[in-house]
């Protein structure tokens, strides 16, 4: 039996024009979806959805980054977000602020301060959790760190509950919620624009970091193949710690945003919010930060749409339904890669 003479392999299935075409179609789909959503929801709800989506996106990124690098679903991540809301509100209240701050200069300073403070604190909390609860179990059977993560989640919730009680706590909405852009007879809160801008800015900053810096490369390579990365000289422990820091810091920022937007928080906020953010991460393609952002916005839209159409009570059920459906039919998510087939 002889082999065919010309052993020509198939040319690579992608060409440059193919890539651009795909990107354009994707952008087109996104644009079309946005337009449809705008028309269906109306301007105010549209902005609401973007705002909520931004929050979910920020939290979802943390989930996806951690999963991408150590293949662990960090159950406690939603509670990191929740603690972030409390950290930011206590920062503001202890400085004596309880309501809108009208002086623009002071407002800017305060915002910068609370964002930095909360993000750094939550980042450190994330690192602490990783080091004490997850790192020792890095080689244990999968069940162990999952259970630990749940345990950590409960610990966080209860520590907060001890200090703040089981009831709603008010968060100072220092950004005035009564400031609007008026377009025609539509009033769009300036706060919403601020939140969206902050979220997008952070996400872009993250993409730059991952794509352009040495540490970002280290993170990417560790996520792809930990052993190879280690052989190349990447400090795995430090890389993982930094991943946790960034993810948790973003969740902290989301917490600040949440407090500004909704003005209230509770110890059990993290559970459902975390689950929805995780849905977003899975929807977008676990391990893919752009996907997490995309997923976050989609989930935000779904939830706002559910409320807008009077199915508010079913909102969570719909989101979780999305989770189940995505995992069953397309576990790779929207932007995830189909990595080969398994019989």
């Amino acid at each position, binding site marked *: 039996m002889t082999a065919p003479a010309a052993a020509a392999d198939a040319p690579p299935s992608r060409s440059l024009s193919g890539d651009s075409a795909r990107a354009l179609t994707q952008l087109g789909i996104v644009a079309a979806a946005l337009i449809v959503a705008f028309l269906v929801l109306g301007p105010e709800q549209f902005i609401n959805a973007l705002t909520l989506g931004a929050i979910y996106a920020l939290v979802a990124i943390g989930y996806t980054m951690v*999963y991408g690098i150590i*293949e*662990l*679903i960090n159950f406690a991540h939603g509670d990191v977000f929740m603690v972030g809301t409390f950290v930011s509100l206590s920062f503001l209240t202890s400085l004596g602020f309880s309501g809108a701050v009208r002086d623009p200069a002071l407002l800017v300073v305060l915002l910068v301060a609370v964002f930095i403070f909360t993000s750094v604190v939550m980042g450190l909390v994330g690192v602490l959790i990783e080091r004490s*609860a997850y790192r*020792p*179990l890095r*080689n*244990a*059977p*999968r*069940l*162990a*760190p*999952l*259970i*630990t993560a*749940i*345990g*950590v*989640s*409960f*610990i966080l*919730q*209860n*520590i907060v*509950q*001890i200090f703040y009680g*089981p009831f709603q706590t008010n968060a100072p909405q220092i950004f005035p919620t009564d400031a609007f852009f008026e377009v025609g007879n539509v009033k769009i809160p300036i706060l919403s624009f601020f939140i969206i801008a902050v979220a997008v800015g952070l996400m872009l900053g993250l993409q730059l970091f991952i794509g352009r810096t040495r540490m970002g490369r280290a993170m990417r390579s560790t996520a792809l*193949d930990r052993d190879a990365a280690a052989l190349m000289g990447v400090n795995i422990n430090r890389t993982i710690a930094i991943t946790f820091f960034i993810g948790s810091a973003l969740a902290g920022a989301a917490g600040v945003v949440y407090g500004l937007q909704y003005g209230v928080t509770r110890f059990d906020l993290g*559970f*459902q919010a975390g*689950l929805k953010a*995780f*849905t977003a991460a*899975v929807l977008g393609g676990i391990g893919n930060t752009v996907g997490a952002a995309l997923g976050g916005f989609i989930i935000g839209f779904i939830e706002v749409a559910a409320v807008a159409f009077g199915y508010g*009570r*079913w909102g*969570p*059920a719909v989101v*979780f*339904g999305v*989770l*189940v459906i995505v*995992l*069953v*039919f*397309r*576990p*790779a998510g929207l932007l995830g890669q*189909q*990595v*080969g*087939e*398994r*019989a």
Partner: protein
Amino acid sequence: MSVVQDVPAPGGSRGFRMRIGTLSARHRSWTIIIGMAIVAAVLPTLALVPPFSSFQNQASWIDGFTNAGVFVLLALGLNLVVGVAGLLDLGYAAFFAIGAYAYAYAASPFGNEILGIDVAALLGDAKGLIFWPMLIIGALVAATFGILLGAPTLRLRGDYLAIVTLGFGEIVPIVFLNADDLTNGTNGIGGVFRPYLPGVGSFTAIDPWPYYLTMIGLITIVMIFCYRLAESRIGRAWEAIREDELAAAANGINTVTTKLLAFALGASTAGIAGVFNAAKLTVVSPDQFGFVVSFTVLAMVVLGGMGNFWGVAVGAFVIYTINNVVLKTLNQFFDTLGIPILEDIDFIGLQFLLYGIALVGMMLLRPEGLFPNSRRKRELHAEVTQPGEDEMTLPEVTEEGGR
């Protein structure tokens, strides 16, 4: 396993434990029956003895034991899923709810109206007779949902399965909460019939013994089934899947159906517990079935000793008692003592903090639980042997829908 150790047993306490282990393995069912009989007799007796007797009267104690028994059943079922087959189910309470609501539909005025039947008219005062067949029907209904949920999801990797079950565990109570017309929403379904036994009459809220003895019986039966299954060909298949799924498939085990079986059996046990619980509380409402329940049962399985049914049962009982008795007592105790800081602590509220710490601590120090299955102990403390991807040149992936 039917293969009995014929290596000479070491001396001392370890030898004793091994001999007990061998003996009980050989006569499994009798061991369970006798053991449960002893438990059934000892517990109420203990309740009459100080300091327990001064805390509450015997009837309240027995009632508490029965309630603990519900969790023992749940823990046994979840142990089959998590401990033996190694599938992480975080939404176990959903099946508990399904069993409970199934009974509520069969055995309450509201439910009967929805179904279009009238049990009370059919059976009159003996309407509680429906409890007994419902134990089986409730189990089957829950098992059906277990299959419906498991069929598309059991091929997912462990973490994803956990999340999907968590999502399902959230969806079910929300559905029961919001489908007002069918489920009476937040108020739940009340007027659920208590069980009826000819010769005993209808169970009551005052006399704890009928419920207690029924629960003892249920636990005994379920435990016998669990042990038999775990020691049968199916049980071996579950353990093989848990240790190395690829190798298990390479030996002819249909991993999908085998996992599904574990899932369905676990769900049916929760269904039985749900039926019983509904018949005892006489009301079912969505808030009885939140994540807290799923998590508590999981904690019981993990802390009690994954894979070991007696260990899990004891763990469940202990944890339940700690929650509902010890923590309450601590509260009262410190209140009466008047110690400043301790007095302010709400120990009941703390319980989940304690769970959390206990779980994390357990995983770090003794992941096989308090009363481990010896094989699990070996597995969890073994050197890292990555099954790895020796056969596949591709990185390990989530199992995709290529089906």
